[in-house]
């Protein structure tokens, strides 16, 4: 009983902390505002056109198999060779915003024959996908190169207005 209650409280807390659960993409031209998760940081303005150019129209660099381009990862090819284009290629359609919610954990533990058992959450895949590539291709890699820290973030990281008083040298800086 108490476990169930705890789970509910936990879920409520996660929802309360997380940003508004509206559509993850606010399409404006071909620049997406990735802001569904913004909390400690502002959202990211993502120039889709520029990335299409940078990847030379190879959607699979970012989209696995979901955009119609066949996957290249040998591990994915095993099952997804002929998967074709998905109804929606959006990251958030498969990678949930709250991977640690009681419902999602329950689904993970209790779905028989679930192959993608440790599917990373939306925040993780954004960072893994973008940052992983940026590190290799020389794109921006500092936290604040892509999104500015919010007031809540400054409080969380004890920085900016909330930096420890006595000991100087606490200027926030971007990170690789």
């Amino acid at each position: 009983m108490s476990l169930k209650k705890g789970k509910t409280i936990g879920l409520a807390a996660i929802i309360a902390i997380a940003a508004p659960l509206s559509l993850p993409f606010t399409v404006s031209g071909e620049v997406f505002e990735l802001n569904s998760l913004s909390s400690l940081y502002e959202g990211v303005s993502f120039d889709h056109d520029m990335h299409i150019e940078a990847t030379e129209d190879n959607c699979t660099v970012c989209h696995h198999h979901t955009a119609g381009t066949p996957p290249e990862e040998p591990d994915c090819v095993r099952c997804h060779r002929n998967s074709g284009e998905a109804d929606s290629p959006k990251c958030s359609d498969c990678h949930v915003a709250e991977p640690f919610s009681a419902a999602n954990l329950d689904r993970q533990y209790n779905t028989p024959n679930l192959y993608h058992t440790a599917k990373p959450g939306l925040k993780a895949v954004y960072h893994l996908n973008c940052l992983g590539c940026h590190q290799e291709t020389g794109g921006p890699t500092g936290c604040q190169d892509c999104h500015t820290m919010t007031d809540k973030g400054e409080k969380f990281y004890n920085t900016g207005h909330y930096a420890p008083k006595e000991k100087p040298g606490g200027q926030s800086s971007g990170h690789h």
Partner: protein
Amino acid sequence: MKKIDRRNFIKGSLAGGLTAAATGKAKNASAAGGTFGGYPDSMGVLVDLTKCIGCRTCEAACNKEQGLPEPDRPFDDYSVFDEHRHGGLPRRTTEGAYTVVNKYEVEGREHPLFRKFQCNHCNEPACLTSCFVNAYTKTPEGAVIYNPKVCVGCRTCMIACPFYVPAYSYSSPINPVVKKCIMCYDTRLQFGRPPACVEACPQGVMTFGKRKDLIDLAHETIENKPDKYVDHVYGEKEVGGTSWMYISDVPFEEIGFDTHLGPDPILNYVKDFLAIVPMVLCIWPALFTGFHLLATRKNANKDDSNKA
């Protein structure tokens, strides 16, 4: 008055000693034969060290979740990675930080490797077995927690821990106690939720789940990318298994992990010896009092007869 029969006394004491020795030995055998091995459904965390970028968000999350004191420097100050303790050792956990991230420059690796350090929550914790006031508990959920009200601040657990995890509240002169990561048991784990650091990580470095599932996942991950990962799941076997486990693309000994700990829980190294202690305490006083009486009785009798 009945005189002590020397022969009967020796016979009796020898028989008693042998019985005690035999029972002691039997106890040892059964204990060594079956180790505890951890709760079957305990939770764990699998850390993929290849993914960590050293953003220190986990440190900040831990600080807030556990209500720890304000840090000396902001959590987005990355110069802390250049801080070293005496002997060039990297940062370790303190009373004000139950987890720290350290940076390792690895030769031949394009980027430095970052490693999060916190309590590994052993299946058979050395801290727990070493604690003489029983302050520690290994919960069925997998966390190694402790009761600070019981802790007397003896710091035996700090010496017992093979990972040097427990820290000490040196700043508290009145009632210093041991401080360490409790896997967010109070606020999260007991309700089925992952520790705060796991949830805060922007890179999904840590996977939360049942320990036995995580072991499968770890081996599967290594199998899928054998060129990337080192074929070793650190924590699967070490010191009897730990709730926190690690996979890496760099040999573990190069990034500060002790790879010589062996698969036996620390307890096994002292169990045999400790089993003898009660035997010694019970038999030796009786035995040597007996010897003493035998050795002095004669003189006492002699004195008595001289007087008579």
